[in-house]
């Protein structure tokens, strides 16, 4: 290599970023060229200076804040992940379906039937009327109504 290598080539040589053939060429040139040797020395000086600069470490407060952020997200993610799991939703869905079926099946017997006759109230009234002889005595529920009618006719 008779010509001086370009600056970026020298920097790349310094950083061992050239391929084998380029490295050999620059090395041979360096051995013969004092100007390029000087250039390399001064560039190496800058590189060494930067490498020797004090390294900063993350302040504790910042590290704690970031750890806390990661932790908060972790908890939230765990909850969301669990909720999205089939092993949670399959049994929940099955239970919900079973409960719905049960309600459907038991539905008619739940709550007051709007068509139901208030039997107890009627019987109480009947007992009162019977005591006052306003109605025929006897078991109204089990004796056919026709029997009561026949009995009443005979009495008349």
């Amino acid at each position, binding site marked *: 290599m008779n010509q001086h290598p370009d600056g970026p080539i020298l920097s790349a040589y310094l950083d061992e970023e050239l391929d084998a053939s380029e490295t050999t060429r620059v090395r041979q040139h360096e051995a013969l060229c004092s100007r390029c040797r000087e250039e390399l020395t001064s560039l190496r000086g800058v*590189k*060494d200076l930067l490498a020797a600069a004090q390294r*900063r470490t*993350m302040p504790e407060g*910042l590290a704690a804040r970031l*750890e806390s952020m990661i932790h908060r997200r972790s908890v939230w993610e765990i909850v969301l992940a669990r909720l999205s799991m089939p092993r949670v939703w399959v049994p929940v869905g099955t239970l919900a379906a079973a409960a719905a079926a049960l309600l459907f099946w038991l539905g008619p017997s739940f709550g007051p039937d709007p068509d139901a006759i208030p039997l107890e109230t009627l019987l109480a009234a009947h007992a009162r009327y019977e005591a006052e002889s306003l109605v025929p005595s006897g078991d109204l529920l089990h004796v056919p109504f026709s029997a009561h009618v026949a009995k009443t006719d005979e009495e008349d």
Partner: protein
Amino acid sequence: MEDADFQELFRRHGDRLYNFAFRLSGNDQDAADLVQEAFTRAFKNLDRYDRARPFETWMFRILYNIHLDEVRRYEKKHVVSLDAPVTAEETGQWADLLAGGDPDPMEESLRRENDVRVQKALNTLSADYRAAVMMCDVEEMSYEEIARVMDCPVGTVRSRIHQGRTLLRDAFKEKEGVRTK
């Protein structure tokens, strides 16, 4: 990626990322903001992280892009002259900055002082040069990795690193009255 993995990666690379952020921004407050924003964005976009690639390169890229956005926003509002000379108090003597083997008891103090000068010299570089030189010389990343972070060809990385070093050298030498090439 599980959050526990992320936490482990955060612990492993947090300091390195912070150091990079500090050198890019030049002060602790901005570095802390940069790192926090970078981790927050990374955390929100974990599903976009390509596990085949190094986590660190991904994080450096996020942080670098945030920094570039901030620089562009700032430059829209302010006129910044990159040619503005650095004062002698800021950079000191070029020879003083080179590490020596002298076990002087004041070595630590000088090292801190030199560190400040290095930072002030770095601050005179544009964001691209500064980031390229920092990733190469401080973080010891390969040109390939730097190219991935900066989203540019390796040839561009090579130019930026060389140009950055040349500008730094000139900034230091200028204080000694040495004519630079």
